């Protein structure tokens, strides 16, 4: 069984490594993300959102769904800690 795990992990890792060979270099100006998404944020961001901070504009407006998910993750994390660690009064008396 351990051997099977080792083979599965190695094959998946090799496939991921192979896939990463085709990815564009870091900072490549010809990469797909750099030729149509980024210029739109940089050139039209201020006119569209009236917010001078580009990072906030992307985070809170263009990628608002993502940020909503992040907040929900933090909320869920705190709830999980609360449920595991906090003792109610009934439990203390028991």
């Amino acid at each position, binding site marked *: 069984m351990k051997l099977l795990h080792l083979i599965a992990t190695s094959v998946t890792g090799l496939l991921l490594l192979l896939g990463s060979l085709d990815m564009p270099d870091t900072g490549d100006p010809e990469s797909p993300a750099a030729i149509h998404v980024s210029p739109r944020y940089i050139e039209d961001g201020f006119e569209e959102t009236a917010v001078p901070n580009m990072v906030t504009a992307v985070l809170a*407006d263009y990628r608002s769904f993502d940020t909503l998910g992040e*907040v929900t993750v933090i909320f869920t*994390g705190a709830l999980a800690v609360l449920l595991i660690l906090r003792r109610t009064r009934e439990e203390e008396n028991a």
Partner: protein
Amino acid sequence: MNPEPQDVIVKTVCRLLAPFIQLFGLYVIMHGHSSPGGGFQGGVILASSYILLAVADGIDVVNRRLSLKMLTGYMSTGVLLYAGIGVVCVLLGANYLDYGILPVTEPRSVGMLVIEIGVGITVMAAVLSIFRDLLTFE
């Protein structure tokens, strides 16, 4: 938790510092538009001021100011504010979280400010709640 009582100098300095840290946290939240900052960072700064108070004066002092029920309420309020703005946009006829439809000047900027405030409230309450639960766990 009953830690050793802190020195009077530590207590006084922490009490003096806390309001300024809170003011800075609010500034970071409200100014996330035009300078580095935002709800996540500002919320953590706000929570850190209460953690400083808890370290200096004990957790009971913090509990008196921000009760457990209020903390859980704040946590939910922030997420509700964020999701609620999205629903308001839907009710006004746009897509979910498409702030452009809000009936104010510079609607996208205002929408972002509201969700940053929501994020700040949730992060502050969540960090403080986790800190408190870890501290009082036996």
